[in-house]
């Protein structure tokens, strides 16, 4: 399979942390089926450390692989560390993705922020990494501006 590298294929074929945490401390969903991918993430938080994360994603191979990788990357991290993770970090952990897949299929950093925002709201906490973040914004800047897909560029 030449489309994706072995690491991406491994995370796509054997995704880690699939599912939904019961009674999560935070949950977030990002993307839309119209755009072709949608990720839902639930997290458990103890003493500001993400102790568990699970995801469910509707989307293509790279959307599933990057969701899987993102959950691996945030488990064990502090909230501040998790908020600092960018799509670029996820892609680089995956060893790269085809250029055309970079913008549309990597939803994880936004979905993580949505879940942490939910946690922060429920617990009355504030984090520097969430400043100016609006989970209900239609599309984040990166997606809307650089995504070539028909639905995004409308």
């Amino acid at each position, binding site marked *: *399979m030449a*489309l*994706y590298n072995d690491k991406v*294929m491994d995370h*796509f*074929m054997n*995704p880690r942390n*699939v599912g939904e945490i019961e009674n999560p401390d935070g949950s977030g*969903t990002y993307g839309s*089926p*119209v755009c*072709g*991918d*949608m*990720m*839902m993430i639930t997290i458990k938080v103890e003493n500001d450390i993400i102790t568990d994360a699970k995801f*469910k*994603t*509707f*989307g*293509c*191979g790279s*959307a*599933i692989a990057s969701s899987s990788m993102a959950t691996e990357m945030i488990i064990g991290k502090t909230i501040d560390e998790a908020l600092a993770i960018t799509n670029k970090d996820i892609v680089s952990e995956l060893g790269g993705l085809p250029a*055309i*897949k970079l913008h*549309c*299929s990597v939803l994880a950093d936004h979905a993580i922020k949505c879940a942490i925002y939910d946690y922060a709201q429920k617990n009355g906490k504030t984090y520097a990494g969430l400043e100016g973040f609006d989970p209900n914004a239609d599309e984040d800047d990166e997606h809307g501006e650089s*995504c*070539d*897909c*028909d*639905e995004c560029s409308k």
Partner: protein
Amino acid sequence: MRQVYLDYSATTPVKKEVLEAMLPYFTEHFGNPSSIYGIGQDSKTAITNARLQVAALIHADPSEVFFNAGGTESDNWAVFGIADALKEKGNHIITTKIEHHAMLHSCEFLEKRGYEVTYLGIGPDGRINLDELEKAITDKTILISVMTVNNEIGTVQPIKEIGQIAQKHGIVFHTDAVQALGNVPIDVKEMGIDLMSMSAHKIYGPKGIGALYIRKGVRISNYLHGGAQENKRRAGTENLPGIIGFGKAAELARLHFDDHVKHCSELRNYLIDEVLKKIPDTAVNGTMEYRHPGNANITFRYIEGEAMLLLLDAKGISVSTGSACSSTSLVPSHVLSSLGVPVEDIHGTLRFTVGDFTTKEDIDYVVETLAEIVERLRGISSVNSKKGW
């Protein structure tokens, strides 16, 4: 691992008989057909024979078949050749929203240069409306181009009726028959076709060779300029082995037409029945009534096509998808959009095309594998039948 190829609309393997017919023309009989010495003339004779074989498949006169590089060149030639030849008469072209990009992008190119193009939509059955076609005709209309069979949903258009309308108004009628050739009956005379695009690699012939049928008397400018090949209509040294292969493939398609259609439609129908029966939340796109015998276009809701395609590939199964995520343009299928399929469903669409080498055991393996894959991806998906979209 079992290998199952179900993408015959993308391309077909070259049949053994076709390859055998071609081989001597690479080495032994390599002469340039334009050369007047013996081995050159032998090549010319072989081309004449291949032209007869292709003409017989479409009920044309051999002098009306012009070999070229394939479907894309044929579509470009038809559009630009007519636009140029009839520029004094008008600047309006009528085509459909579901044409192949070879046609759509050629029309878009002309639009930027002052031509006007009407893109007809399709009804729920995937066919154009003939009244709408007739109403779109103006005194500036120079070309009507409607594909015989759509490459994604396999819908067969009412070609004969379109031909009659074109004839009534004195307008040149072109059809892209790349998917139709060998799969639905074609009689250029009876159907009133003036120009028709064909490609060899969809009928078990080689890639890079095709032909444009030009009815005797149709005024069309040349597209490639140079030598006097193809009766001064298409320049460039002939793709000799390709032409021989196309000829042989056309002959086989004509001789085995009924068996081919029966074989494909039986297996296609079996595939559709089994998928709909065994996998919930699935739907067939396009009508079953007027359809390419090998085509099945199926939506699997709540999951995405590229992910399905990759997992199928890992199990040795080759299919294609209308999902934006597998295309280089990230745009969902324009054909399924025109048919009114919701965008979220288009993302979960697969196209299967069965062909001469497909077996019932292949279909059983594909359905069994599909059921597993769909269940697995739905288990990962953030949308499902309970939550809906």
